[in-house]
């Protein structure tokens, strides 16, 4: 049985972005669902779970891409910083928060510099800015690389949507027994 499963695993490309993302997401889903929950789920709980699942999806996607893309690097950095900030707030350590604040200041400076440098030749009414906000890490990129990152980001988002749809479909096959 295990041999069958392994062969099935290897038949499509096991190292593709899709498979890496899928495994990461499923792992996270399992983790999220492992937490004991009361059966009649309150709306608040559902909303919390949704947030967790969404964060897990983006994190898994960024991890699958790794450090190859600027947007994935920015996204991973943001996630790590969010966690760090959470820990720092909980532990009330001054050093970590200081490090974070310094880095944040550097980032803001970079953003300022880059935005002044980037002559928005694509003159549409603030569309490039909108795009910068949408793509993770878009604030510090130049327009040219922003477009490139957008293309890859769009592709990864499409993969994400496809995989998640598939997961939902599988769940929907079986009626929920609560």
């Amino acid at each position, binding site marked *: 049985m295990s041999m069958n499963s392994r062969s099935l695993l290897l038949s499509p490309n096991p190292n593709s972005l899709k*498979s890496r993302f899928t495994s990461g997401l499923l792992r996270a889903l399992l983790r999220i669902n492992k937490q004991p929950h009361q059966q009649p789920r309150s709306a608040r709980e559902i909303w919390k779970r949704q947030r967790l699942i969404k964060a897990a999806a983006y994190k898994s996607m960024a991890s699958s891409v790794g450090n190859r893309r600027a947007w994935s690097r920015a996204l991973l950095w943001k996630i790590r910083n969010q966690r760090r900030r959470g820990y720092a707030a909980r532990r009330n350590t001054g050093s970590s928060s200081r490090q974070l604040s310094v880095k944040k200041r550097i980032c803001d400076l970079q953003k300022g510099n880059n935005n002044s440098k980037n002559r928005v030749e694509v003159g549409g009414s603030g569309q490039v800015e909108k795009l910068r906000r949408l793509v993770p890490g878009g604030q510090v990129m130049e327009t040219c690389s922003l477009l490139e990152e957008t293309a890859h980001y769009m592709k990864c988002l499409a993969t994400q949507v496809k995989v998640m749809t598939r997961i939902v479909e599988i769940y929907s096959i079986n009626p929920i027994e609560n």
Partner: protein
Amino acid sequence: MDPIAGTVPGSALPGPDHEEPGLDTLQFREEIQRLMTVPQQENASSFTALLELPPTQAMELLHLSPEPPVSVGPLLKSSCVNPFNSSLMFPRDVELIQRAAKFSIFGGEQSPEAVAAPSNSGVNMEKVKSEPAETDSNPNSSSMETKNNQRSSAKRKEREKKGKVSTKKSKTEVKEDADKVPYVHVRARRGQATDSHSLAERARREKINARMKLLQELVPGCNKISGTALVLDEIINHVQSLQRQVEFLSMRLATVDPRIDSNLDQLLATESLSLMQSNFSNMAPPLMWPEFPINGSRQQYQQQWHFDALHQPGWGREEDNHTFITPEASLMSCNSSANSASLHTGHVKTEL
């Protein structure tokens, strides 16, 4: 297409005279458009079209060796359009600028020969490009060629040729204004301060345009839209819709998901992966799943009593659910069976 057509001819020119008969520019633009439409049919990707340029021919272009316009023409026709579409890389704009400067000087020296070309140039881009083809090879050009060969980018050579042509044209224009009426003037629409700046700007613009074309291909239904602003709008909408879809799907996952936490399911993480990749169109795999947990659990979990306890209440109620539960469960099993086992005990208690 017009802006692109306008800007490509508008290469960096130091010449001060911008007052050319508008008719020529119009003809030139039409010619450019014609040229642009033709290769569209040939090549889906401009980059491959450029790569199709045999290096020898590209080298000849650079050599500026005298060539009959005919042979150069078709090559130029296919190649000159590509820079409009291609994603131009200009890793070292400085070198390009230096080369352009060299060629501007060079153009001044070769003015008599350059003049010969305009006589028959009319509106054709090919004939315009034949100017440099007729000029003698230069040590500058050879050195430039070696640099280009190192980089092996036909696109850049083509762009440099255009730069040369434009700079030469500016020089020749200055010298003989009134003579050649049907003269294609290739110059920047807005006055540029120096060659280097305008060249760099043009390079940057071309790069951005190339990336925009890439994005246009990615976004469905964006090919028909012309104009950067609308295309950007479309792209932004698409990204936003994808992000909204992810959010919606995560909401569905949060509500839909029931019992993924069963330990039995962990065995089939691998199954889930393969199934994810292979479209799940056939429902055969789910039918096979129920048997896996039995064997897998015994192989992977030492605390089998967990499974026995879960099996009895589990199978009865959740026979259907196990089919989808198994994928995730197997994933977890690969990683941390101990953790899952401890968690399973908790689940056993909650269930019972």
